[in-house]
């Protein structure tokens, strides 16, 4: 008789879970469709609340960061809460539990899939925001991408963990929001600050401390999530 199979390693597991999730997403567009439509609706509502003249008067750096990040955060909630709800239909969550793999790697895989979805969301919504609120994106594109990526990663790190907690007690977006938004407060502050600075044309050096802080935040909570995820997933 052969020796028991040793499970996949950390990186392989994360890659497998992420690829599986993205393949499922591609087939059903379960969360992406909801995310994009929701983002669109929020943008339309904002256009009622703040008219173009007001935005032109104030300049892009005052209104746009807030609009951008509320859109990303609230559409992101959909992907965070779906990340583990999609394992409940045929109790595939138990199948993941039974696999001889590191549970932190399962979290990492889910995180990667969520990040791809958020990236897709942002490539649509950010230009759309620029279009709707008529400001010029091109001169700030580079620094803006850096700011977006950094804070999206941090948001997803916490969001995937809180989404898993909400899914474990059978709740969806509402509980995820209650858990995530206060915990992510420093990140959201930094996101709005740095986005404003970038849109205002300030050099990256002036927001270096914020960016490093957000990076540290994301890394710290990634470690916390990987370490505690076993307890979240446990039956």
């Amino acid at each position, binding site marked *: 008789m052969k020796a028991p199979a040793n499970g996949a390693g950390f990186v392989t597991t994360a890659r497998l879970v992420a690829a599986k999730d993205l393949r499922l997403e591609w087939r059903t567009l379960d969360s992406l469709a909801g995310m994009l439509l929701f983002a669109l609706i929020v943008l339309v509502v904002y256009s009622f609340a703040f008219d173009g003249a007001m935005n032109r008067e104030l300049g892009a750096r005052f209104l746009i960061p807030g609009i951008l990040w509320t859109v990303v955060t609230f559409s992101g909630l959909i992907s965070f809460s779906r990340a583990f709800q999609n394992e409940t239909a045929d109790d595939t969550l138990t199948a993941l539990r039974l696999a001889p793999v590191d549970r932190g790697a399962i979290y990492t895989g889910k995180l990667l899939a969520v990040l791809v979805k958020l990236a897709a969301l942002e490539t649509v919504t950010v230009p759309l925001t620029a279009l709707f609120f008529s400001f010029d994106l091109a001169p700030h594109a580079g620094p803006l991408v850096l700011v977006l990526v950094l804070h999206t990663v941090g948001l997803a790190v916490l969001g995937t963990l809180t989404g898993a907690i909400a899914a474990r007690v059978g709740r969806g977006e509402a509980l995820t929001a209650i858990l995530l938004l206060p915990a992510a*407060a420093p990140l959201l502050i930094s996101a709005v600050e740095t986005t404003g600075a970038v849109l205002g044309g300030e050099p990256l050096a002036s927001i270096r401390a914020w960016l490093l802080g957000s990076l540290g935040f994301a890394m710290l909570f990634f470690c916390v999530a990987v370490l505690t995820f076993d307890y979240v997933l446990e039956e």
Partner: protein
Amino acid sequence: MSSTPNWLERSLYPLLVLTTAGMVGALWLIFLHAPEEKVMGAVQKLFYFHVPAAIMTYAAVAVLLIGSIAYLWTRDVRWDNLSIAATECGLFFCGMVLITGPIWGRPAWGVWWTWEARLTTTLVLWILLAAAILVRSYADNRELGARLASVLGILAAIDIYIIRKAVEWFRGMHPTVFKPGAERDVDPAIGQAFGATSLVFILLFLLLLAVTYREAQLRDRAERLTQALGR
């Protein structure tokens, strides 16, 4: 069996008497001993309750952190009972800080609320503690609720430290009554009153912690009895 008082129950009444006596003494020190502060006037006396309540909130979070880690490590429900007690006490003290804060802030700053470092931190902490209670009540069994709430407890404790730093950086305008350099200017009676009130608040925290812990224990026993009776 349940009528046998344990050490916790026995310590409850002495603690209650001690806290009440201490509270009377502290109030005497605050209102009759300490002078009215020159700049802020009478409202400054709120400081004697507001600040110790804030300190006790952080103490409750520290206890919650210890309880959460210890529960995940040992899976002993006693640690989870401690976490429950710390969450409930933390919620109480945090709520008191949140209410007395604006009442002090209105005459001092001219506004009820500002998105200032400590105010924001305190509000966020209150939401996180309430969310932990919510998650417990949503979970369909005690074990799952305890585990998820413990993870949240760890998350909240780490997070609160970071939020504090981040918002401070962002905008800080909180009054500091004791400035490190200017300590000699403050009337010693103010210091005495503050010190005494802080001690009384520690007693109050311990008292509330004992009561809430005892209740968590009783609920545990009730659950076990329910099961012994065959539901």
